[in-house]
């Protein structure tokens, strides 16, 4: 069953088009990653799916209905800034949000009487997840749910998210982090308000390549290549020239008499986003 169905949605702010003719579906039990650089239109799209913003045109259906107050009982949302009261305890937060959704509070995910604001970020994210899921939503929208937490805390959170999906919940995760995107069953890549690719990470990266340059005089090599046109990034002391032609890079380095090892490698998801935005 399709839980989230977005068809041809456009959202304009004055002359700026934040979301441009986007299609997106999330089925029950599926984890879909909405990826894209900052400003790609992810948050605007999520706000429209949640009913916080009206599309300029297009169709949005959540659980076969238009986003409405009644429908919100069946949707859970964890914003990037968590949406918790920092000056309430874990139990008090859960109690409040449970009542806001018309239900009864779940047991706290861990034993703690501290104020939420005093907890480490990993625990705060767990509380936010518990608060957003305690009313048993059929659709879960998560905005960068594991950013800023330790690898261990991240694994625990993804374990919880996966368990929800296994139970039939449709999960839409917005992120621009590679490790979060890797957890999704399917990715939808947004760039400049449009869908630039869908599928697995491999599908999205497809045949996009980068030229990796390892040079003893790496700073000179970076300065040279940075002005040559294609986007250039640095990974340690390795220079990566995105979407560039291998021979062109080689000859540019040779002309400048810079000795270097040069090879072609698949682009990463981050680099794909940079390439799409450049």
């Amino acid at each position: 069953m399709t839980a989230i169905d977005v068809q041809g949605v456009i959202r304009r702010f004055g002359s700026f088009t934040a979301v441009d003719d986007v299609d997106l579906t999330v089925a029950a039990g599926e984890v879909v990653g909405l990826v894209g650089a900052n400003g790609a239109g992810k948050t605007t799209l999520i706000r429209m799916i949640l009913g916080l913003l009206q599309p300029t045109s297009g169709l949005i259906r959540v659980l076969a209905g238009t986003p409405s107050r009644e429908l919100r009982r069946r949707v859970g949302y964890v914003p990037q800034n968590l949406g918790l009261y920092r000056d309430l305890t874990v139990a008090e937060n859960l109690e409040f949000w449970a009542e806001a959704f018309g239900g009864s509070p779940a047991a706290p995910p861990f034993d703690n009487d501290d104020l939420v604001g005093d907890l480490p970020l990993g625990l705060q994210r767990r509380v936010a997840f518990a608060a957003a899921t305690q009313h048993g939503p059929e659709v879960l929208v998560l905005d960068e749910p594991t950013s800023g937490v330790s690898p261990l805390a991240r694994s625990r959170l993804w374990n919880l998210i996966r368990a929800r999906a296994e139970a039939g919940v449709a999960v839409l995760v917005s992120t621009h982090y590679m490790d979060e995107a890797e957890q999704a069953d399917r990715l939808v890549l947004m760039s400049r308000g449009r869908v630039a690719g869908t599928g697995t990470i491999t599908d999205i990266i497809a045949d996009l390549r980068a030229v990796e340059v390892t040079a003893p005089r790496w700073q000179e090599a970076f300065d040279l290549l940075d002005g040559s046109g294609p986007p250039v990034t640095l990974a340690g002391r390795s220079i990566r020239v995105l979407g560039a032609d291998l021979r062109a890079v080689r000859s540019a380095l040779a002309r400048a008499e810079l000795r270097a090892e040069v090879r072609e490698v698949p682009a990463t998801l981050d680099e794909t986003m940079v390439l799409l935005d450049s």
Partner: protein
Amino acid sequence: MKAMILKEFRQMRRDRRTVALMVGLPLMMLIIFGYAARFDVATIETAVLGPDAEVVASQLGGAFTVVKLDPAGTDDEARAMLADSEAAVAIVTGAAPKIYVDGTELFVAQSALRRGESLPAGLESEILFNPDLNTAAVMVPSLIGLILLFIGTVITSLGVVREREQGTLEQLAVTPLKPVDVIVGKISPYFVVALVDMVIITLAGIVIFDVPFRGSLFLFAVFGLIYLFVVLGFGVLISTVSRSQGEAIQLAIMVLLPQVMLSGMIFPLESMAAGVRWIGYLLPLTYFVQAMRGIFLKASSFGALLPPLVVLALMAVAVFGLAVWRFRQEVAPKTAKVATS
């Protein structure tokens, strides 16, 4: 250190509200203190009643301005006029001539007594409502308004802005809660706390400072409730245009200061230059102070309290209505469009 100073000036320049506070506030204070902060009274509204009213009125000089001349007027009418703030001084002529001075208008009363040479000689004078010209008796009823204003604007705006800073306002918007539930739920506790404060300050004023309470408790409650809507409205309104708690405090100061200075609470409205006096008439505290002094000290009639009541009620509808409308924009999500383009 030079870098630090330079950085601070750059930040200061870009923070428009701080610049407004640093430049606007001194200017405002200069204007207020220059034109409004006067304890000397230029005009004393005077009623002259009784058979010799016309003769006595013609002899009045100086600041005494005759606002009512009634040869058929009686002693009781003179007292009633002062109770209803229709005049600050009433002179009764005839068999038992007397001069009544309104003791709740502290500076006006002092000024009237100082200028006794301009009044007919040999008349017995009596200060009504506040015979000892006790400052606390006049200030405490006004302070209730100021304290409620403080709670209403500063505390309420901080509470709402904190909600936005934590990102919980957006989270509330995706719950099934109706906007009205959110707004009423958010404001009610401040309303209750402010009400409790109002009762505590009133009781403390009566017990500690011997402030008399002569008027109607019902009218006191009605004024208190209406005024609370105005001040809470200010608080919510400030919060809807403030991104941070710091900004909210800055704006609250801008709202509070003119009311302290121009409401007639400290400086009499009558002594202010006309150019700034009109600002006083736009401020809710002005009307609340008038009403509280009337209710506490003079047992003013309902008729006399009706004008401030109507003005405050209109302000409550306008300010609270606007505040709720703006707050609603934030917590009421838009329904998604079904139709395709």
